[in-house]
């Protein structure tokens, strides 16, 4: 019911995106010392109604096992290799994860998630006010 209201849908999408991003950051940090690991990132955020036909209309590979290709990322936003920033280099073993960069990204995710949940509960209380007023 609430998903049909634009405000809730946007906050919902934003939260999904940020949780997916958090799991990508977790993967990068866990692999900070894995030889040859390339840092990953998510494609920039786009609300679902802005994507052509919506995310559900997209053709997706069927997956019957969690390890299947296409199911691993488990999100509506594609994984992309993180752009090689000028400040952060590659280690001699071919690993491109920079812990400092990941920490900054993580702080960013925390702020944005706080904003998204606050927006969601604010919209919820707006809705409650409207309902109460009708009594």
């Amino acid at each position, binding site marked *: 019911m609430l998903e049909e209201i634009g405000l809730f849908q946007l906050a919902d999408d934003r939260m999904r995106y940020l949780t*997916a991003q958090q799991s990508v950051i977790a993967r990068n940090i866990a692999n900070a010392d894995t030889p040859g690991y390339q840092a990953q990132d998510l494609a920039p955020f786009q609300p679902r109604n802005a994507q052509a036909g919506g995310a559900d209309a997209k053709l997706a590979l069927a997956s019957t096992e969690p390890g299947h290709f296409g199911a*691993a990322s488990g999100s509506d936003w594609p994984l992309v290799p993180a752009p090689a920033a000028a400040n952060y280099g590659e280690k001699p073993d071919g690993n491109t994860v920079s812990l400092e960069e990941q920490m900054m990204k993580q702080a960013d995710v925390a702020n944005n998630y706080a904003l998204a949940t606050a927006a969601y509960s604010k919209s919820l209380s707006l809705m409650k006010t409207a309902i109460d007023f009708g009594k």
Partner: protein
Amino acid sequence: MTLLSPITGSGPLADAMETAASGMRAQALRVRVVSENLANAESTAAVPGGTPYQRKMVTFEQAIDRATGANIVQAGRITTDKAPFHVAYDPSHPAANAQGYVEMPNVSPAIEMADMREAERSYEANLSVIGQTRSMIGKTLDILKA
């Protein structure tokens, strides 16, 4: 579409927890290997001309957890360092060869210290991921209270 269900223990946040925990396990193993090396920094052979303790090394590799589907990191095989041994002149040592030289382990305390610091740093980074993931789950649950 992925379901956001932190309470039931599946979804991206649960995956993030699993991944960070695996990273901490791997780093803890690395610290264990460092402590083994440091403890054996002076372990020579017991017989004249024998080989002393060889430095151990651990490498990491990516894997997928079969139960949860989360991307995890795990330690690969523990290998030994092929670097040459240090040689010391000590004719009275039980492991000294005919010329009076003793082969000492190829462990360098400075390298082990650097390795330990790096493991500590990565461990803390993984810990901070767990902390933040927990707080995100908490914020999601806070919507219920609104």
